[in-house]
């Protein structure tokens, strides 16, 4: 955190020192953000601001409050202002053709963050920066395959039924489980990505599996459900992290706290830094026309209790 602030201040100082002549050459990027529905989303916006400052880019953020029509309006206004590039974190996958064509006609490159869209002509956008949710599930599975010695009955807390992230995180995890005969998913249910539902579902899993004695690990599609599940494990008189291994995905600050307390074992981070790689691709494109790949995958890292305390401190102000 301190380092980021320091770099930010340095960047500011640099901009101030080089004076107003450079200010005219500064890249201006318009960013249509979905909203601030979760801590992760808020962190994504904060990191985007920090990364822009670091590179001396002027970032104009427009909050769409979960509405596609607001995003389309914002993109049109960015085009009218003649920005150098437009970033969109699309709230839905469809309905983007017309407005993206307008941006293309105005020769403004568009980069998608965090989510993809359905368009016939992929040339309408420069690239999409997002994580690989299948791989995230796979990393969680690989960790568990190593951590669990001997046969292991797993219970799975799924995300909202039908959500693409939930489908992909399940797919990646199942791939590893099917390759490892020792592992077996005995129960799987949706916890709607929330703490309250995660707790309720885990409670019933414990009842259904002989008071939790036959459960060796809990895999949750996001950290919030895992935190609810941890509470359910504790209420049943078992030790989360020891009696039942806990692995989840996202890397929100509270799971690092749980890991530091020894109640969770691993979390796969979904990085909120989507804008950083997008800025790099944009700068390369502007400098010498380097066309980035159509999908820039963000790095997926697994965190364990050894670094939990430091990671919590680093993140707690971001989210």
């Amino acid at each position: 955190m301190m380092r980021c602030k320091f770099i930010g201040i340095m960047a500011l100082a640099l901009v101030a020192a080089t004076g107003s002549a450079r200010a005219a050459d500064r890249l201006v990027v318009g960013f249509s953000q979905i909203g601030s529905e979760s801590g992760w989303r808020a962190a994504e916006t904060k990191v985007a601001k920090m990364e822009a400052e670091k590179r001396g880019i002027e970032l104009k953020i427009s909050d769409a409050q979960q509405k596609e029509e607001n995003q389309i309006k914002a993109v049109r206004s960015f085009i009218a202002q003649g920005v150098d590039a437009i970033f969109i974190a699309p709230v839905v996958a469809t309905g983007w053709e017309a407005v993206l064509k307008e941006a293309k006609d105005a020769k403004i490159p568009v980069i998608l963050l965090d989510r993809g869209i359905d368009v016939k002509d992929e040339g309408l956008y420069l690239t999409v920066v997002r994580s690989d949710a299948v791989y995230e599930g796979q990393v969680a599975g690989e960790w568990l395959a190593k951590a669990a010695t001997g046969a292991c009955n797993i219970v799975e807390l799924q995300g909202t039924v039908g959500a693409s992230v939930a489908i992909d995180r399940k797919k990646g995890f199942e791939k590893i489980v099917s390759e490892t005969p020792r592992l077996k998913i005995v129960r799987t249910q949706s916890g709607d990505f929330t703490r309250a539902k995660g707790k309720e579902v885990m409670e019933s899993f414990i009842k259904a599996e002989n008071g939790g004695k036959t459960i060796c690990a809990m895999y949750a599609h996001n950290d919030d459900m895992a935190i609810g599940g941890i509470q359910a494990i504790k209420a049943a008189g078992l030790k989360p992290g020891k009696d039942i291994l806990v692995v989840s995905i996202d890397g929100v600050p509270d799971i690092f706290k749980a890991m530091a307390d020894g109640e969770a074992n691993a979390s796969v981070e979904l990085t909120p830094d989507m804008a950083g790689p997008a800025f790099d691709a944009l700068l390369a494109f502007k400098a010498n026309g380097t066309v980035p790949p159509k999908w820039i995958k963000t790095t997926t890292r697994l965190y364990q209790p050894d670094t939990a305390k430091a990671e919590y401190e680093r993140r707690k102000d971001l989210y």
Partner: protein
Amino acid sequence: MTNSPMARPSSRQSVSSPAAEGASMRMSPEAAPLRAAPGFLKRGSGPVPGRRFLPQIGGLGLVLLADWLVSPQFFALRLQDGRLFGSVIDVLNRGAPVTLLSLGMTLVIATGGIDLSVGAVIAISGAVAASLVNGGLPVPLTIIAALSAGILCGAWNGLLISVLRIQPIVATLTLMVAGRGIAQLITEGVIVTFVNPSLSEIADGSWFYLPAPVMLVLGMLAVTLVLVRATALGLMIEAVGVNRRASELAGIGARSIIFLVYVWSGLCAAVAGLVLTADIKGADANNAGLWLELDAILAVVIGGTSLLGGRFSVVMAVLGAWIIQAMNTGILLSGFPPEFNLIVKSVVVLVILVVQSPVLGGLNPRSLFCGRGR
């Protein structure tokens, strides 16, 4: 109507008013056992008073039977950290928020209204509690503040509906939408977590071996029953629900009655909000109580209260909430793929509602031809 229950000596209403007659015609049968004091025994509400409740009791029985079939250990109980531990306890415990909501919702619906804002009020009261306790406020004051927030929301609804006469569905819809925004403002868009054992006690604690939320439900149920059945308040609510104008002409302060039921609903929602927040030790403004208003309305309807107002039964609404939760818990225990959750739930609800239908229920075939006759 020679045996009119209006003839009770303590009743403050006018005996001869047509509205009161109408109300007594659709009086809740639940009142009968509760007020079975000498002098009131003659009041008839059918040959077997409990008969109208057969669909609910049978429904709960069937759902519990299904739970036991999918999960043989369903009724197993053991002591864990000084509190009973088992699936049945889970049903009561997890069902507590909806049960609390249904207590207020029943009275609101009995006046012919509806309260869509309760889910948002849950989020607000949770957000208030979590923020204040993190700010260092003592727990009793935090609880009072959270409950006051709920009362304030209810009063706001009541004002719009009783004084300004805005339609309940619209008036409460505004708070349903805005309320979540208010909660998000309070929490600044993040899940506000807290570490405070005394506040967590609301959900984690146990009294008489039962989880605290279950005891809260029983307590609030008792208070609600005393309010509506030991006083004339219940009759007045029914009268207003049947015909507001006629009840006003009969001397009932319909405006205050309507105002008060929304306040009560707000308070019940605030208690539910405290339970949910204490449960996850955090206030999740986006998800706390999301769609619970619909479950609460469903519980009331399963309990046999008509959305048109008039007749109501608080106890049956609680039973309705337990049916819903027994179903939810059963689905989780069953190991069905989650894609089936909503379908199973709606089929069971549909069956209970069809059984209750005056046409198919066969409880009173004459109602087919005689309209409102009892």
